[in-house]
C-alpha cells in the first residue's frame, strides 16, 4: 500500500518545528509501524538527508522507548499496543498519517519525535522503591503473599514507563504512571513500611516536574499500551490523603556508641 505521512520535524530543542510531508510507498501490511519508518528513513539517508529521529529499542512493546502521536492518538489506533507493535495492517492504502512527538510540558522535545522523559525517572527516585539493600533479605517464602494481591501488584507493575498516559492526558498529568508504581509496591507486604511516605514524595515530585493535575478524564487508561487501570490513581489518592492527614513526625534515633 501507499501512504502519505505528515511528520513533525524539529532539528533541536530550541529550534522551530513543523509538519513535513513524505510518501511511504510499497508498504507491506506485515510491516510494523517502525519498520515502515525505517524504510522512509533509508530513502532519506540515500538522498543525504537527515532521517526522522525517534526513540525505539526492544521493538516488542516492553522497553517503553518508543512512542509517538499517530493521528492525534498516543501509540496509534490499536488498543493496548505500543507503537513498535502496531502493524501496518491497521491502516488502509491511500491513508494520510500525521505523526508527532509526545506533547507535554514535562516532556520537552529534543529532536523530531524524540522527547526528554527524565522526569519519570525522577518520580521513581523520589520514592518509587522498597529500601532493601543487597544482602539484607530473608528467605523469599517467609512472607506469603495472597495470590490476588500478587496478581494485582503485577497488573500495576506492568507499566513500561513510555509516557503515553501523560501525552494522552489533556492536563499532561503523570498520575497513571505514578499511581501504577504506588500500587505495585503498596499492594505487597514488603512495600508497607514506606507506603505513605512514598505516596507523599512521589506526588510532590510530580508537581515539581510540571505535570498537570488529574481530573479523571480517563484518556490515560485508553492510551496505555499495558492497559493499566485508572483504579491505580484512586489508590494513589487514598494513600496520599491518608499520608497527608496522618503525616508522622520523623524522629532520628540516636544509636549511641555502646
Amino acid at each position, binding site marked *: 500500500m501507499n501512504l502519505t505521512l505528515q511528520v513533525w520535524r524539529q532539528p*533541536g530543542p530550541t529550534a522551530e518545528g513543523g509538519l513535513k510531508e513524505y510518501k511511504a510507498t510499497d508498504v*507491506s501490511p*506485515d*510491516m*510494523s509501524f*517502525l*519498520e515502515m519508518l525505517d*524504510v522512509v528513513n*533509508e530513502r532519506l*539517508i*540515500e538522498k*543525504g*538527508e*537527515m*532521517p526522522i*529521529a525517534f526513540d*525505539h*529499542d*526492544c*521493538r*516488542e*512493546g*516492553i*522497553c*517503553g*522507548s518508543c512512542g509517538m502521536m499517530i493521528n492525534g492518538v498516543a501509540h496509534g489506533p490499536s488498543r493496548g*499496543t505500543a507503537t513498535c*507493535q502496531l*502493524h501496518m*495492517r491497521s491502516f488502509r492504502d491511500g491513508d494520510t498519517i500525521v505523526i508527532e512527538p509526545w506533547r507535554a510540558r514535562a516532556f520537552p522535545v*529534543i*529532536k523530531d519525535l524524540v522527547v*526528554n522523559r*527524565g522526569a519519570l*525517572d525522577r518520580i*521513581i*527516585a*523520589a520514592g518509587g*522503591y*522498597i529500601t*532493601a*539493600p*543487597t*544482602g*539484607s*533479605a530473608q*528467605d*523469599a*517464602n517467609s*512472607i*506469603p503473599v*495472597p*495470590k490476588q494481591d*500478587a496478581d494485582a*501488584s*503485577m497488573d500495576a507493575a*506492568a507499566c*513500561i*514507563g513510555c509516557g503515553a498516559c501523560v501525552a494522552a492526558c489533556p492536563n499532561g498529568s503523570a498520575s497513571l504512571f505514578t499511581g501504577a508504581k504506588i500500587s505495585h509496591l503498596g499492594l*505487597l507486604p514488603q512495600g508497607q513500611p514506606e507506603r505513605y511516605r512514598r505516596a507523599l514524595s512521589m506526588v510532590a515530585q510530580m508537581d515539581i516536574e510540571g505535570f498537570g493535575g488529574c481530573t479523571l478524564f480517563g484518556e490515560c487508561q485508553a492510551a496505555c499500551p499495558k492497559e493499566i487501570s485508572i483504579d491505580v490513581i484512586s489508590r494513589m489518592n487514598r494513600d496520599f490523603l491518608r499520608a497527608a492527614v496522618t503525616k508522622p513526625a520523623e524522629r532520628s534515633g540516636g544509636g549511641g556508641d555502646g
Partner: protein
Amino acid sequence: MTLQLDARIPAGPLAGKWDRHRFEMKLVNPANKRKYTVIVVGSGLAGGAAAASLSELGYNVRCYCYQDSPRRAHSIAAQGGINAAKNYQNDGDSIQRLFYDTIKGGDFRSREANVYRLAQISVNIIDQCVSQGVPFAREYGGLLANRSFGGAQVSRTFYARGQTGQQLLLGAYQALEKEIAKGGVTMFPRAEMLDLIVVNGRARGIVVRDELTGKIEPHLADAVVLATGGYGNVFYLSTNAKGCNATAIWRAYKRGAAFANPCYTQIHPTCIPVAGEHQSKLTLMSESLRNDGRVWVPKRKEDVGKSPTDVPEQDRDYYLERKYPSFGNLSPRDIASRAAKEACDDGRGVGPGGRGVYLDFADAIKRLGEDKIRERYGNLFEMYERITAENPYKVPMRIYPAVHYTMGGLWVDYNLMSTIPGLHVAGEANFSDHGANRLGASALMQGLADGYFVIPLTIGDYLASTKLEQVGADNAEVRAAVAEVERRTSRLLGIKGKRTVAQFHRELGRIMWEYCGMARDAAGLRKAMELIPQLREEFWRDVMIPGSGAELNQTLEHAGRVADFLELGELMCRDALHREESCGGHFRTEHQTPDGEALRDDEHFAYVAAWEYGGEGREPVLNKEPLVYENIKLSQRSYK
C-alpha cells in the same frame, strides 16, 4: 606475546571456595569507600544491580546507558524466568544439581568454580528480589510458584507472568534510582562508551559520547565495570533490542582485554519466523511455551502446504518427542534449534519459505482448558497474534530458531576481572558461566549474581590491594584515547558515500547467519573470513551518514556499532574455524555422531579460547585456559 591467563580460582573443596574467597578478600575501610569512584557501563540486570549495590556500600558510582533511561536496558525484554536452587517444590533440586545441569547444559565448556558459585548465589537472588517487591507468580497459598524450563527436569524457574526480566530489572532500577536520589550514583543516560582508558596498564576510565550534544569526553575512575550485554546483533536479525552492541567490549578488546569463545552463540528455537525483507528484528516466544506446546512438522513433504488442522495425528512428526523421549519438547535450546533446522532442510518446514515448525497447544487446551493456558501465556499469545494476525488458541504457532544470546564475551577470572587489571566485566558481556550453550532462565540468574553479589565484593578486593596514582584529564594516555575517538567519529562522518548503514548491517548478518550460524563448516567459515573484510572495506569507503557529530545523530551511533560488528564477525568465524569439534551452540558439520549429535573432542578442546588483539592488520593471538574438571565427570551429553 602470550597472556598469562590466571583464573584465580580459590583453593579448597568446590563447595567452600566462595566462602573461603570472601574471607580472604581484602576489605576497603567503610570510611574510605566514598573516596573511590567506580564506573559501571550498563544499567541492565548486571550493571544496574552492581551500580546500586556498590553505592549502598558507599562507593562513588557513575553509571552509563545508551537509552534515555536505565530502565530500558535490554534485560527488560526477558520473558520466561530465572532459575534458583531453592527446591521449594521438593522435587530433588539442590545447588549441586543446578551446578551440574548448568555445566552439562554448557556442554562441559565452562569453569566449575564459577558455575558452582552461581548455583550457590541463586538462592540469595530470589530472596533479594522478593524483598525489593518483585511480584513473582504465586500459588493460592501465597507461596512462590515455579515452572520448569528447557534442559531441566526439576521446577526451579521463578517467573512474573511472561515479563520476568521486566520485573527483575525494575527491582534493580528502583534500587538504582534510590541510590541516585541519595547521591551515591550519578547516572548518565543517552551516553555511549566509545573507548576504554588504560593508564599504566590499568583501566582508569572510559571515553563517552553524549548522544544529545555529541560531546566526546573522558570519564575517569579507580575501576571500571562493563555490563553492556551481548553481541547477538552481529547477525543483524536477532531477538536483541535494536541498540544492543559490542562496542564497549570490542574497544576494550582492542585495548588488551582477551575475548573468550567469541563463536559460542545461542540460537533460540522458539521465535516468530521472518516475514519479509523489511524485517528489523525477531521476536522471541518464550521457551516456557514448550512446557505445554508440542513441536511438530508433517511427516511427509506433500503435507507442508496443508492447513495444520488438516494433517491427521498419524501424519505428524513430533520430532523432539521422537528423538529425545526423556526430555521431549523440553530439550535444551541448541538441540531443539538444530532439530528444527534439520526438519526444514529436509523439506518439511511450514509457512513462508518453508522456514518454520509448529508449536501446537491443542492438547494442552484440551487437557487444561483455554483459561489456564491464557493465564500462563496470555501476553505471549497476544504478542504472537499481533505480529502474525493468527490466533494461536485456534491454529498452532509457527516458530523458527533465531539468534538470541552470546555465551562468548570478555575473558574474566573468578573475580570477574578481565586481562586488564581494574576492568571487570559482568552479565552477558563476559564469557563466564554458560560454556558453549546457556540453559533457559540462567542469564537473568547470572546477571544478578554478578551484579548484586560478586562485583561489589571483588571490586573492593581490587581497590584494597592496589595502589592507584592520580590520573587527570590532561594525562597523555587519556588525551590519546579521546583523540582516537574524535578521529574515528570524524572519519565516519566524512565518508559521505552511497549506501546506508542498515544495508551493510543486513549484509553482514546474511554472511554470519549463512556461514557462522546453526551449522558451520571449514569451507564456509573461510569464505566468510574473505567476505567480511571486503564488506568492511566497502563500509569505510561507501557508507552514508548524514548530519554532523554535534547533535543527536542516530545514524552515526548505528554506524559506530556496525563498524565494530564488522570486525567482531571475523573473529567469531576465526574462533569457529579453529574449534575443530562440535559443542553446544557451536556445531561443526564435520564433527557429529552417526545420529547427528554434537561430537566433542575433550582431548584437544577442553579449554577456553581467549583471543588477544594482535594490532592493526595483524592476526589475533590465541591463548588457552585449560578447563579442569575435578568434581564432575565429562560425558557425552544425552537428552534421549
